[in-house]
């Protein structure tokens, strides 16, 4: 085989791989205008400055806490690495991965995910895993999360998963093939609309109130991981009224946190203290807080974190200040935009929210 022929063959193979890689970029969902929750995990990699606090957990962190309010009130820098129905092992591996980039002072984990001991759905796995950069932790997380009919290959090469989107491609898929707009505020998903709590569903009796073995295992590992990295672990239960947080569960976490000398804050119990008004601070009947509620939680939590762990106020540091000023600007701009939209249409049309009938 002569040199020229060999060179041609190499070029041909490279061309193939580039073509496939481009197709993969094209076919992966962009999560820009619908299901924006899918963008949360990857936005962490855009951060250029470090954080005092890292949040992990399900929608009860990324919808209920405003990092911008933490900065504005206490000069605390934070990021929420939350995802829809994030399972505890996904939270654990996200923390492990985060610690490779930075060592925050505090890690906060929302404890509701303890209820799941098994992978729940492929779709939620995707929202939490696809955004992660390739790493050992990502693969471990995938292996812990896969449903029975999922394959590692489909995570390593998402084209295998998303190839069937070829007939639903939209302009957006081409537009954001390389770069996407930022949609979150350090992992916080903003909503300004309001839907008050009208009913609190009755809790269903459960056969067992014991958390599962796997859930405990990862909680233990999370405690260990934080200890090793010299990070303070804080457990919280966000003030969402549904899914129901059982007293039996609360007791177990209380006991566990005392045993391991962790701070456990049940914000649901302390909703009055936090100042949550379930008539104005939630956008979907008490499941998730809106921006008003998220800011109240941030103020309340920030105070505790500052007092307990002596977190520094960075507001007088010019470099950080300018970064966070830009974040605040984007935050306020989006709030204004959503408020305007709400006024105009009566609901948040751009987020694909359905118009409410009531």
């Amino acid at each position, binding site marked *: 085989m002569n040199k020229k022929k060999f060179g*041609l063959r190499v070029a*041909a193979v490279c*061309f*193939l791989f580039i*073509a*496939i890689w481009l*197709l993969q970029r094209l*076919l992966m969902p962009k999560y820009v205008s619908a299901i924006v929750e899918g963008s949360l995990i990857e936005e962490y990699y855009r951060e250029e400055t470090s954080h005092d606090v890292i949040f992990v957990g399900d929608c009860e962190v990324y919808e209920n806490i405003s990092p911008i309010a933490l900065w504005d009130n206490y000069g605390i820098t934070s990021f929420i690495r939350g995802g829809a129905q994030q399972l505890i092992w996904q939270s654990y591996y996200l923390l492990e991965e985060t610690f490779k980039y930075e060592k925050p002072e505090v890690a906060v984990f929302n404890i509701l995910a303890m209820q799941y001991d098994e992978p729940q759905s*492929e779709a939620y796995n995707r929202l939490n895993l696809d955004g992660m950069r390739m790493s050992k932790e990502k693969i471990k997380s995938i292996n812990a999360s896969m449903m029975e*009919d*999922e*394959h590692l*290959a*489909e995570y390593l090469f998402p*084209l*295998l*998963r998303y*190839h*069937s989107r*070829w*007939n639903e491609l939209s302009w957006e898929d081409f537009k954001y093939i390389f770069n996407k707009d930022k949609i979150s505020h350090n992992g916080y998903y903003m909503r300004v609309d309001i839907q008050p709590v009208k009913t609190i569903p009755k809790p269903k009796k459960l056969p067992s109130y014991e958390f599962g073995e796997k859930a405990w295992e990862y909680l233990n590992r999370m405690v260990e991981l934080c200890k090793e990295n010299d990070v303070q672990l804080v457990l919280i239960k966000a003030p969402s009224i549904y899914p129901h947080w059982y007293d039996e569960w609360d007791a177990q976490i209380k006991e566990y946190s005392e045993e391991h000398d962790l701070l456990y804050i049940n914000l649901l119990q302390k909703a009055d203290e936090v100042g949550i008004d379930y008539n104005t601070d939630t956008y979907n009947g008490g499941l998730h807080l809106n921006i008003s509620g998220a800011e109240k939680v941030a103020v309340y939590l920030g105070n505790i974190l500052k007092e307990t762990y002596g977190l520094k106020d960075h507001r007088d540091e010019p470099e950080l200040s300018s970064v966070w000023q830009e974040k605040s600007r984007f935050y306020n701009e989006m709030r204004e935009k959503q408020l305007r939209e709400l006024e105009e249409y009566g609901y948040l049309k751009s987020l694909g929210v359905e118009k409410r009938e009531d």
Partner: protein
Amino acid sequence: MLFASYNFIVFISVLFIIYYIIPKKYQWVLLLLASYLFYFFAGPSYLIYIAATTISTYIAGRMIGNIAQSQARYLSEHKKELTRGEKRVYRDRQKSKMWRWLLACLLFNFGILAVVKYSNFVIANINHISKAVGGTGGFSFWNIALPMGISFYTFQTMGYIIDVYRGKYSPEKNIFKLALFVSFFPQLVQGPISRFDDLSQTLFKEHPFEYRNISFGLQRIVWGYFKKVVIADRIMVAVNTLIKDPETYQGAFALVGMLFYAFQLYADFTGGIDITIGIAEVLGIKVKENFDRPYFSKSIAEYWRRWHITMGTWFRDYLFYPLSTSKGMMKIYKFTRQHFNPYLGKRIPVYISTIIVWFTTGLWHGSSWNFIVWGLMNCFVIVISQELEPLYSWFHSKVRIGNTIGFRVFQVIRTVLLLSAIRMFDCYRDVPTTFRMFGSMFTVFNYRELFNGSMLNLGLSMADYGVLLLGLVILLTVSLVQRKGSVRAQLASRPHLIRYAIYYALLIAILIFGAYGVGYDSSQFIYNQF
């Protein structure tokens, strides 16, 4: 491990690399290990079955070989002193010894096949009869898993032992080589059914790395996946919707289901065989072709010589010929000849054998009456057209259209329709349903419904139909190009740019348009039943 699974692709990729790295004299050993690993993934307990077949056949083969050897030695040593009659007596005695070994081997191995594959069918039939005569029909079904590919490797291995018995070649002395012949993994799942003398020529050889083999083999594999994953697995969604609910999908939909199934079966089966032969080709091994553009056949008899060829020749060599030339058949021949006429004498033994062969063929396909009826229908059509032959000749002598292209196209289409109609038996759940559905094509006039959007309720979208149509065009084109010889060889003489454009387009088409992964869950489920 299914062909269309990530595991399998990783498996063969790793195998290909190791195969050409290790010393060449161990290549066949690697293949044996790989085959057993492949089988292990299918179900560890299945290994017992394939090992039992291998060992029993090995022993029987060696014993028959020894007898044949000692017979040859004895005859040449005593060439002079033995009379013709004495030789014959000696030979008959030896033959009957060999026969006993052969018989034991056949009974043992076909016995295994019968038990694992047909016992529940037999039990179901007994229960049915017993219920009909007022009994309880209370035999419960056996819970035996059917070892993967057992019909294929049993047939292949029994072909070997019969050949050894017939003295066609001497038995393999190395049991591990025989084990590889029995279990060679690319053809384990769906054939082709190879002959030992043919396959062993390349199977145990040392194979140097040859670019052409690899390149052609990989092309064939990609082509196979295209047929299987893009076409067969996609159309399967609609086929399953149609045949699972015969009450809803009658008339026009039965016709659509029939045609779709023909399309699916072709793409799936020939695609699978392409993958098999392609893998073997990359390994430097030559596996016999199993298809010869079967849907261009002009008659059912011709179709059966061009579809699943290795199966057909197996039945011919090991069942039809022995049966039709057996002592019993000769007696029937003589009897009918003397008491009726030579015409009947010629036909009756052949037809009896043919019917038996087709019954067996049906049964081989599956343990249900559907398949038996399906086999007998094929037989019926072939016999009828045979008997009507003089009429056709007369017809053609009156109407001279026999050689026009139009008439040939008509023959081809008629043959495809006919065989598709017969194949409805392996779609629907039972024989009466099949007849009902066939009838509905002529009695239920809902052909207009095909155009009111109900085709989009079968699980396929407009885009899917687009892909299928394109796939059909590509299949047809390739088949037509094939008439001029190997498509890959023709491609190889084209400029690089065109060649690579075609390879890449095919590969990317599989990646993008393949009906695999999430979103095709239902088809995945159906797929597993194969």
